[in-house]
């Protein structure tokens, strides 16, 4: 269900996004752009502001200030255009526990006004087969394991072929084979022009998949760029993404903290 692309050169654009909860600034002036067909990594420690940023980008959370643009459309000023192009997978997917997998995909397809018919049905069957859910026909989603919910959540995005995917920990809870499947799938989708913004804790996945990454720490973007650019920025030419991440989000040295924790207490 491909929609016409807008004139914007970017598929995703965060413009000075700020989100305040009372006195807490969960996200503080986050800006970045993601080009069409790019897989972009969005990295950060727990509570750094990743999920809040993603939710502002997909329209679930209203920013205190700033703009979220999908395919050039402002998510809050022009929500119907933006949402029609967007697919968001939460780290705990939004599903209906009392529907079967097939019924849920049908529901999502109708919600996005996908034409009914053989083509849609075939696509649904292919997705259920791909994620090994086809033989779970009589089972309600409420009885699915976390990994299976993740898979049906992904299938519910792919059934409608959005041009932009925002994925919050998409491999969370998946077995190694399914995680590999998701990685291959994302690469395939990007090759066909789909833009993927990927938030993950698993730095190996980010390093393997993403051409560029942004690292967020305590609500601020601390670095954006390709691996090479990040290495130059930090002056660590041989560093892995994990080294760069730890350096850019520097907190107390974990080694010292562990030693202090395990040291016998003095009375």
């Amino acid at each position, binding site marked *: 269900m491909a929609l016409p692309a807008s004139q914007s050169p970017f598929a995703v654009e965060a413009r000075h996004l700020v989100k305040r909860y009372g006195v807490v600034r969960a996200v503080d002036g986050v800006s970045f752009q993601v080009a069409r067909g790019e897989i972009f990594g969005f990295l950060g420690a727990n509570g750094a502001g990743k999920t809040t940023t993603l939710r502002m980008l997909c329209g*679930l959370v209203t920013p205190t200030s700033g703009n979220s643009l999908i395919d050039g459309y402002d998510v809050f000023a022009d929500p119907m255009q933006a949402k029609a192009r967007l697919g968001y997978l939460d780290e705990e997917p939004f*599903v*209906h*526990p*009392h529907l079967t997998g097939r019924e849920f995909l049908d529901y999502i397809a*109708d*919600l996005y006004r996908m034409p009914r018919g053989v083509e849609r*049905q075939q696509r649904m069957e292919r997705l259920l087969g791909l994620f090994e859910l086809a033989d779970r026909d009589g089972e*309600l989603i409420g009885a699915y394991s976390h990994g299976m919910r993740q898979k049906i959540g992904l299938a519910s995005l792919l059934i409608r072929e959005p041009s932009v995917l925002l994925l919050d920990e998409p491999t969370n809870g998946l077995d190694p084979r399914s995680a590999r499947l998701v990685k291959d799938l994302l690469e395939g989708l990007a090759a066909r022009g789909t833009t993927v913004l990927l938030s993950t804790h698993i730095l190996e996945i980010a390093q393997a998949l993403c051409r560029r990454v942004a690292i967020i720490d305590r609500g601020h973007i601390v670095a954006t760029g390709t691996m090479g650019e990040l290495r130059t920025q930090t002056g660590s030419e041989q560093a892995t993404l994990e080294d760069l991440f730890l350096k850019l989000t520097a907190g107390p040295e974990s080694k010292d903290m562990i030693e202090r924790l395990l040291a016998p207490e003095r009375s």
Partner: protein
Amino acid sequence: MLAGSRVIIGAEILALRHRLLKRGPVRLALLVVLLGFAAIFIGGGSFSLGVAAARYLPQARDPILAAGFTALAVLMFVLGFPTVIASLFVGRDLLQLVLAPVRPVDIFIARMVLAMIANLLISSLLLAGALGVGVGSGASPVFYVLAVPLVITQVLVVTAFQALLMSIVLRWIPARLARDFAAGIAGLTGAGFYIAWNVNLRQSFESRTRVDFTNAASFIQQVGWLPPTWPAHALSGVIDGSAGAGAGWTVLTLALAGLVATAAALLYGRTLLAGLGVFGGAAMTWRRPKQRPAAVARAGAGSPLRAIARKDWLAYRRDIRRLSRLLPALLFPIGYAFAFSRPSKELSGFWSEVFLIAFISMFMSTTLGTPSVPSERRGFQLLRMAPLPMWQVIRAKVALTLPAVLVMTVVFGLIVALVERNPVSEIVELIALGIWLGLGFVAVGVSAGAIDPRFESSDDRRAVGMVGTLAGVGGALGFGALSIGAFALLVFAAGALAGTAHLGSLPSTPAIGALLGAAALVLAAGAATLVGALLWAANASLVRFEDAIAAT
């Protein structure tokens, strides 16, 4: 209290405090003011009734107290089952408690306290009434000291009895049937008991306006030996100055409470895990599919409205807790149709039917419409992310609820009208009124749920916050009063135009008829405006919503 229970209850109180403080100072102040008003008007009304009844019907003090305690027990029994199930057998936090080194009896006590909170709020009405009876009878201070613990004991007995019943079901009914069995018991027993009680009590009324308490007293005396009346006998014993009777009934009440609570606690320990399995989530399997080729897909454009309606329909059929709420809802109109349809001296059959239709329409709309938006739970985020304006979501919910409400209203209205042998013109008027009321009440009900949704609630009956509940009740009463007022004016206007209306001091002329017709239109416009305002507020609330919805 046991240490484990204290920790669990402490955590719940802390969570409640956070939930309250999250509302902000303005909403909190509003809530306090509203609760204050409710306490003054509803509690004060109940207290005054108690005083008046005790003063003017001194011979009926014991039956009046017995009726109050029985009514409370029945009300808690009918309305409280889903809450007891949710408190004792449902929730991720319960799973955490099972994993922790906490004894089942600690979990039982803590969860019982939670399950009792709603019932204790309801019972404050009875307490106000009972205190009124004490004041009206000039009772000794012992009466007031005893009244509070006896009301709390009554709540404990009913809640523990419900827990015991559920534990028995889980212990001896096969797991695959337990959910349906529990829902059946909860819905049918409660609703049946309530309707039987209501209808019986109504039979003791000579007419709608003159209450014959002698008959009411004799009915209550017939069931005076039942346990729900024991605390009442204890209190009336104190009023009569009979220390022996007061102490005897109090001991019996406390002994019963101890017995039921102990039995429930013992059995709960053995059935907690089974209950978590049975009630903890959706049924494992809906149906085992036969190996058959996929059906040929229907053509046409995908419709969000149809998608939401179909999803809701499937979820309703499969969610046993929602079904258990629907069963009494379906029984109530039948009972009330019977109770209301009997003609009285003061009202003609036609106006009885008008009130019957209004009641069924309002009741069904509240039952089905109000939780329809909050019951989306986390799925609401899917609707927010879809290219779908929120007014379409509201429209879908109204469209899904409306047929059920209209069918119930029109069918029952029609049955009663045919039994009463109303002329065709009156039947047409009643059906037209039913459709108008159905449209309005459903819109009000859905709006109330959308104005203040609690998407994380696992219990539909707690899925709407205080603001939404007040908006729903106020909106329904306002719309109902304006609509029935408009309808009455229209009927009188038609009579005046024909010169046949009895309008008291007003002449039955065409001019008066036109005036009444115009007034009816103003009232109808007011009713429509009220509904429109609530729909607007509902849409604004859903558009504004941006909280995270945790998985429950």
